[in-house]
């Protein structure tokens, strides 16, 4: 009988290395003769570059080299776009403008790199930055995405007529037609501000060109080593087999470490190829706030058309999406927003005019949630307002609009981030809501506790929201499983790992298929020399795409094991069992052969390969989903607001999550806790504050407030399992689920707590200051 390991709360294989400081992170790489780089970055957000003089910097003892865009000659070019606009949407207006290795003509955002200095230590390299003389002519700056569309606005890209980066319209049904007949049409404007990922490890790169071996090795805090290897190889005219990209242990990523190509990735590689010595660049925290991508900034003009009993007839969501100075990531984020505005609800008519707008700010690529939180915020807030205006309970209005569980797969018609029409593979929303209401005792709280507390003058509030999460997008991942002659099992796959526990959850699959202990499965991710093909870790796809590739590869090896053992033990395969590292005849347990012996048998010194066979017990497989699997859930929260200071305390937090088959509940719990913590940051603490000059006013952890343990409540979790029909494991992603509904939930709960006639929260994040202004009915201050 195969020991059931998939779905077990198994502690992690990788923890002992991390806990004892024996895990290699990029900044731990030390190479003989290694030099250190620092970047001179523009303090102006928009300026014409008149000239740079490196002479004084080059004279400083310890400085080995310094380069500007000019020094790169023909090697200088804007990066290739990472994601193109979907060809499947007609007449998409899209202007690709991608980031540059070093500024040549014009600075387009504060922090954009002007020059690189390479020295014997980072200390000396930073000293030399002050020796560089730069002639910058400041230009007018545009940071607000609405003012960026004014005809007389400064232009981020001089070769375009406007700051429009993209414009497209997505339609489902015919909103205009049903709007007139609706009993109630609600119109609101919703503003969502920028946030940062704030991984504890900043970005870092070590690039080393070994001229004698003609081998380029790059350690990079990337989420996708294989596309980086492919890009660097083509950029610098090398074969892919001359380039090895290693994402060792990565200290959290949350999205921005998928972006490609960061200027530093190009420049470190270009410099080591030119100089022949290994070079290390470690981003410091202040650089991270300027040079690492950010996300969330959007402005929505929304209309919701309903019947008098709260049934949604149609939704119109015209919105602007802030892409910052460049748009290498295509339309992924705003397409996610459009899909998640539809959410778990049946919205027959939908229209969305989307404009992506350039501004003089750091460029935008996905941050955990990647456009989904904004979509959920829009629909859940509009439902709350509709409930209030129609006199329907806010839970009731959600229940009335859920897609029933017999409509799946449900085609939402509009195009999603994978360039296909957005199909929800499976779902079962009502029980998740019922469970959440039961866990937070919604009836008892709203009927008994809240009224009593309100009499005592206390402002307590409850919130309940539902959401979906598109996960597990293609194109594909691959994996190789090998039984070595020692009996050890080694697995390799192309995704990178940033704390998601792949070394354990994937090992559980292989261990179950091959009857070994999880601790005996040695797994490698993020090393292009170990596995040549793949995409990367993002969009909550690890547990879907890579896990299914690992599963398929393990089953190939299982087949080979049983076939070889059947011969060796002269017993039909059906009567064999694989357990504890041996293949045993079920009825005669004493007759067995170890996996290691079988591996040796599969690769004898003579006569190993018959025509059409291959040596060894190894299987390689690839998995590409037809389309993404859609997870979902309901979150609920109780908060108390101090009516005098406007400080908010979260009293209870409930999650009911459905991410299909769960590989490891312990790891899923961790993903949900971390997601909610980031969501709480996004709701009340974390906002990137830019002034009109494009200056970031809180580029440090003292003023960009990442929540500590004191701010994050205990989170109660319940699971529901609606397996995905799209993959053998039935799994869906969960990496971003925790972060997606929190801002919408927080706004509803705080609004419910304040309980002020006419006070509507239509923005995120909030802060004590903003609650003070809303509570006292004042306009936004400085």
């Amino acid at each position, binding site marked *: 009988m195969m020991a059931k390991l998939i779905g077990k709360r198994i502690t992690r294989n990788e923890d002992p290395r991390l806990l004892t400081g024996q895990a290699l992170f990029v900044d731990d790489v030390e190479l003989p003769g290694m030099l250190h780089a620092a970047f001179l970055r523009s*303090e102006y957000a928009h300026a014409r570059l008149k000239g740079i003089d490196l002479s004084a910097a080059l004279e400083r003892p310890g400085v080995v080299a310094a380069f500007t865009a000019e020094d790169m000659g023909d090697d200088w070019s804007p990066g290739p776009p990472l994601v193109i606009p979907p060809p499947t949407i007609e007449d998409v207006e899209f202007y690709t403008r991608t980031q540059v290795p070093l500024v040549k003509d014009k600075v387009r955002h504060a922090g954009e790199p002007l020059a690189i200095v390479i020295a014997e230590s980072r200390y000396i390299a930073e000293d030399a930055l*002050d020796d560089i003389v730069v002639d910058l002519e400041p230009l007018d700056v545009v940071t607000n995405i609405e003012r960026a569309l004014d005809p007389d606005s400064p232009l981020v890209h001089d070769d375009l007529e406007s700051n429009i980066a993209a414009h497209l319209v997505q339609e489902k049904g015919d909103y205009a037609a049903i709007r007139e007949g609706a009993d109630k049409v609600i119109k609101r404007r919703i503003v969502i501000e920028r946030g940062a990922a704030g991984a504890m490890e900043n970005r870092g790169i070590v690039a080393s060109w070994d001229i004698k071996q003609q081998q380029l090795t790059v350690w990079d805090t990337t989420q996708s080593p294989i596309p980086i290897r492919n890009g660097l190889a083509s950029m610098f005219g090398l074969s892919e087999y001359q380039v090895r990209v290693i994402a060792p242990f990565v200290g959290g990523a949350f999205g921005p470490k998928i972006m490609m190509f960061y200027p530093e990735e190009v420049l470190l590689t270009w410099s080591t190829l030119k100089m022949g010595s290994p070079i290390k660049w470690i981003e410091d925290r202040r650089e991270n706030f300027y040079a690492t991508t950010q996300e969330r900034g959007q402005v929505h003009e929304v209309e919701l058309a309903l019947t008098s009993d709260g049934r949604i007839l149609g939704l119109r969501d015209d919105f602007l999406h802030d892409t910052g100075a460049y748009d290498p990531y295509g339309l992924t984020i705003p397409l996610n927003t459009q899909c998640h505005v539809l959410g778990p609800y049946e919205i027959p008519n939908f229209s969305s005019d989307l404009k992506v707008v350039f501004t003089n700010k750091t460029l935008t690529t996905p941050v955990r949630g990647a456009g989904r939180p904004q979509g959920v915020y829009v629909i859940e807030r509009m439902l709350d307002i509709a409930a209030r205006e129609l006199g329907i309970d806010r839970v009731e209005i959600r229940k009335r609009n859920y897609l029933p569980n017999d409509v799946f797969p449900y085609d939402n018609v509009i195009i999603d981030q994978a360039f296909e029409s957005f199909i929800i593979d499976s779902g079962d929303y009502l029980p998740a809501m019922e469970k959440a209401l039961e866990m937070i005792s919604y009836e008892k709280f709203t009927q008994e506790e809240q009224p009593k507390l309100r009499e005592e003058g206390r402002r307590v509030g409850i919130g309940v929201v539902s959401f979906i999460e598109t996960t597990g997008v293609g194109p594909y991942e691959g994996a190789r499983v090998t039984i070595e002659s020692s009996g050890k099992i080694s697995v390799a796959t192309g995704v990178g790992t940033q704390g998601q526990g792949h070394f354990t959850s994937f090992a559980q699959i292989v261990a179950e298929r091959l009857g070994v202990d999880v601790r005996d499965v040695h797994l490698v991710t993020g090393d292009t020399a170990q596995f040549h093909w793949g995409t990367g870790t993002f969009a909550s796809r690890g547990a879907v795409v890579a896990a299914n590739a690992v599963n398929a590869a393990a089953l190939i090896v299982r087949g080979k094991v049983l076939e070889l053992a059947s011969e060796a033990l002269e017993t039909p395969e059906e009567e064999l069992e694989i357990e504890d590292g041996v293949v045993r005849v079920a009825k005669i347990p004493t007759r067995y052969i170890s996996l290691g012996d079988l591996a040796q048998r599969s690769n004898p010194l003579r006569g190993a390969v018959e025509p059409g066979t291959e040596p060894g017990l190894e299987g390689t497989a690839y998995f590409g989903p037809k389309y993404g699997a859609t997870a979902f859930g309901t979150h609920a929260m109780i908060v108390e607001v101090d009516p005098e200071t406007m400080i908010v305390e979260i009293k209870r937090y409930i999650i009911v999550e459905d991410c299909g088959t769960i590989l490891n509940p312990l790891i899923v719990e961790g993903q949900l806790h971390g997601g909610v913590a980031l969501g709480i940051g996004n709701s009340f603490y974390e906002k990137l504050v830019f*002034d009109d000059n494009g*200056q*970031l*006013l809180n*580029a*440090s952890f003292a003023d960009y407030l990442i929540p500590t343990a004191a701010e994050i409540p205990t989170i109660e979790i319940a699971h529901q399992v609606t397996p995905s029909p799209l993959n053998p494991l039935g799994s869906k992603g969960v990496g971003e689920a925790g972060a997606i509904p929190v801002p919408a939930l927080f706004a509803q709960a705080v609004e419910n707590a304040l309980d002020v006639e006419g006070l509507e929260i239509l923005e995120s994040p909030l802060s004590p200051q903003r609650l003070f202004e809303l509570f006292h009915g004042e306009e936004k201050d400085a």
Partner: protein
Amino acid sequence: MRIEGEHVFSGSREDVWAMVRDPEVLAKLLPGTTKLNQLSESEYEGEINLRIGPILGSFSGRIFVEDEVPPESCTLKAEGEGRAGFFKGSGTVHLTEQDDGTLMVYEGDIQIGGKLASIGQRLIDMTSKTMIRQGMKGLDAALEERKAEAAD
């Protein structure tokens, strides 16, 4: 960042105006100014060392005087940059004669950029207030001095 306030100087409007347009005095007005010279009728160029506790920001920059209506009002524009960042500001100064002297009303806006803006956010607003307070005291002292010279 908004800057506004007023100050009564004991001296005639003409004296105060002359003071403001005299580079030596203007240098005193901005504490920490190490160099200030007049390039043309309406443009000054100089260097200032801004000391805020352990923080020392040295800036070089320019001051422009525009739409001058002596001795009543003018617009001052200033911009400068240094290692710690850059600043850009503009504001108006109005002088009105009063029985107890001259009332100066100033209001304007200073924008700080670079390192100081992104980390020293708390510093700037407070520092500009302290600097203006010291500046006004410097101008008072210069006025007293000038009045004393005129008297003896």
